[in-house]
């Protein structure tokens, strides 16, 4: 009987510890596949290349300010290096942010990242003026929401929610039909900062921030995140998409085959 008492005390103590830890565990749960920028110290500064029209200036600036509230990182807007905004060529070690009329693609914004060894090495954000030039979307609410969300993806965050018509969560990482809410989905919320803290609480032995991406066989700096357009047609995929073969027809019976082994998320 006397031995039961310490066990009970221990149980209560452990349960208390779990309950105390719960808020941080349950709040933050929207890491995008464990993708993150490698860096050797915090806070780190990520450059956002400015390749957007003047209509986006304020929103890119606001997104940069919003995400810099995170204790782990700062973002800063720098001159763009993407070249043709339709293509939005990425630059190693940073995120190029582009705006253009990309057509009726069905998306307002898209963020693409390149991964090496589980680390983000470069990324792009595209916002689609085909829609933002219309009265429905040419509003501060929609522009804030989409710019904030796409930059958030480039930091390693996924959506908190992808249902359009439920109540807003008060974060730009939440799909909505009404950016203003209430609550407003135009900016990050504490959950996002908590998730960033979890993602970046560890340090890496190297850094991918601000680093030029080294070229390897079959790789080009201007490739798309699915490595496809310049490599031609995808002709084979194995291991659940981990290994792929692309075929580029050069004409005259000549073809280039590109073999790709995709890095695992979270490595």
């Amino acid at each position, binding site marked *: 009987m006397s031995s039961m008492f310490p066990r009970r005390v221990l149980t209560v103590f452990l349960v208390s510890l779990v309950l105390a830890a719960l808020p941080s565990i349950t709040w933050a749960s929207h890491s*995008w596949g464990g*993708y993150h920028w490698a860096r050797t110290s915090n806070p780190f500064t990520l450059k956002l290349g400015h390749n957007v029209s003047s209509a986006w200036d304020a929103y890119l600036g606001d997104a940069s300010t919003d995400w810099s509230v995170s204790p782990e990182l700062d973002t800063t807007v720098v001159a763009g290096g993407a070249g043709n905004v339709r293509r939005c060529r990425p630059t190693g070690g940073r995120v190029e942010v582009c705006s253009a009329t990309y*057509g*009726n*693609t*069905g*998306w*307002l*914004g*898209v*963020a*693409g*990242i*390149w*991964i090496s060894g589980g680390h983000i090495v470069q990324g792009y954000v*595209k916002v689609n003026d085909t*829609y933002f030039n219309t009265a429905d979307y040419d509003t501060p609410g929609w522009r804030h929401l*989409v710019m904030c*969300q*796409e930059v958030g*993806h480039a930091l390693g965050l*996924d*959506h908190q929610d*992808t*249902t*359009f018509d439920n109540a807003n969560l008060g974060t730009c990482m939440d*799909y909505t039909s009404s950016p203003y809410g209430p609550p407003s989905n135009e900016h990050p919320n504490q959950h996002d900062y908590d998730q960033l803290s979890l993602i970046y609480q560890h340090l890496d032995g190297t850094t991918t921030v601000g680093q030029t991406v080294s070229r390897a066989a079959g790789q080009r700096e201007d490739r*798309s*995140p*699915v490595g*496809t*357009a310049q490599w031609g*047609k*995808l*002709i*084979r*995929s194995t291991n*659940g*998409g981990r290994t*792929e073969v*692309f*075929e580029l027809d050069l004409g005259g019976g000549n073809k280039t085959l590109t073999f790709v082994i*995709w890095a695992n998320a979270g490595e």
Partner: protein
Amino acid sequence: MHRRRIALVGFVVLAVGSAACGGLSASNRPQHATDYASVLDHLRAAGLSAEPGEEVEQPFLAVTGRMIQVRGGDVQVFSYSDPAAAAAQAARISADGATVGTANIHWIGPPHFYRHGVILVVYVGDDAQVLRALESALGPQFAGR
């Protein structure tokens, strides 16, 4: 002798039944769309006013597609070199359609992805008639909301 006859009859009935089933399913099975034109045909056969649209390039898909304009929205049709290539592309699309490989997409509405053979179709919207017609043409969606 009696037992052997029963066994033989049983075999014949089974064989005929099997052939009949095969024949019925073959003749009644809805033909799925196999290319852009047949997707267009299926939509029209469903009573929808569908018109050929422009080309569409998605930064996260390997090939250029072409749109079909229907009921105020766009159905995007992408044709791959062979079914394996289409399947490989489809394998990179998340169940909710929000990510394709390492691209994260803010869709303008709920996305729906279908695949049959070499065809991969994207429809962003929630028009019930369009969704029914696409399911009839291509089978149930494999990703989306």
